[in-house]
């Protein structure tokens, strides 16, 4: 199993095709307690430096019923 040279453990993937509603996007970008998402010109982006703070709380998944977010564990 390959290891990341700088130790990256979590990757967050966004598929905007699955979530077009701006209100919904605003909801799930704002719900993360460790600031993994931010809106840039209205578009959601992942804040890479915060990805490894992800606690798998699932709040973003709950706030995005369309399933635009996928959380990947890189150590499994």
């Amino acid at each position, binding site marked *: 199993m390959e*290891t990341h040279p*700088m*130790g990256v453990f979590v990757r967050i993937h966004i598929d905007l095709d699955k979530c077009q509603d701006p209100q919904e996007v605003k909801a799930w970008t704002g719900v993360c307690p460790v600031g993994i998402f931010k809106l840039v010109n209205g578009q959601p982006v992942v804040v890479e*430096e915060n990805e*490894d*703070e992800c*606690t798998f709380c699932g709040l973003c998944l709950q706030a995005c019923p369309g399933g635009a977010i996928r959380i990947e564990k890189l*150590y*499994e």
Partner: protein
Amino acid sequence: MRLLEFEAKSILKRYGIPIPEGVVVAGEETPVAPFSGPAVLKAQIPIGGRGKTGGIVIVDKDEDLKERAAALFATRIRGYRPKKLLIEEKLDLKREFFMAITYDTVAKEPIVIFSSEGGVDIEELAQGEPEKICKQHFTFRDGLPEHKAREIVAETGVTGKPLLGIGAVLAKLATVFIQTDATIAEINPLALTASGQLIALDCHLDIDDDALFRHPDIAAIAKDESRIEAAKAQTEFERQAALIDSVDHRGVAGRVIEFDGNLGLIIGGGGASLTAFDAVRAHGGKPANYCEIGGNPSVKKVQALTKHILSKPGVEKVAVIMNVVSNTRVDLVARGIVKGILEAGRDPAETVAVFRIPGAWEAEGFKILRKYGVRYCDRTVSIDEAARMAAQSAGRQSA
């Protein structure tokens, strides 16, 4: 924060608890007693047991107060050199009592401890003559009314006029404890003088750091760094670690004390970190630092702390040891440790002497450690055993 004796006594006075007549002098001032007769010179340093360590000096009427004060200012007492002395009148004592109020974390209520014998080591007295000590809880809501305080004092056999007076002082001390958000409020001894007065000869007041914002006057004292000449000045390494801890509000990862060994310690949990530190030393390990992590620190903080400890010259390995955790996540600590080591340009498998944090999310944490080849153990391995493994691992490295 622990107040110095004169600071604590000024609070007692505010609440109507009698204190001896006295004056505080700084090193550059000429000591002049505001009373005639023998004096007691007391070094104002934040430790107990000053009488046994030369921090309290009796100066007779015909002795040179200035000379004795100068000698006390020049004395280092358990690492502290006094910046101020309290000069008090020496009283003619008939009897001494002990009273303290602290918070019982098991019962989750404040507790009064009263002894009919004061000026002594209360732990020793509790073992030898437990009948002289009475302990009783009270509530923050009701406080400690005088009649209840008297009941406590009476339990130890005190009667008559002293019982009334001591009960009143104890009730006032409980008010001090509650209203100043103290964690310890102790008068030892409370003296009964030959003239029948009750006077607080010494006072230990510890205020909850997290409540200082409610007491601007005490907070101002806490901010005055010049009041105590620290036993050991903060090193640049410790200062940098404190900065790491202040990066965000999440958990603790950066309370560090520097030592000159080769084994970096990332250890946590108050008593457990002390246990781990002592165990490493007992097994021949040479800690490069003491530290505390806990309260679920952010990955970033653990990462930065790990890198910082590894930046200390001579540190080749780190031991990561905590007790079984419930409010800190093992996987988040594991992420921070691995990231910090990699950022320092080291190999986690070679650098971690032992990782022993069992508890919340340990299965995820152990997956991370396995992936990077880090030696870890679960709760079946004691802190002592983990410390032994760490000491051995670091010893091999330096041999």
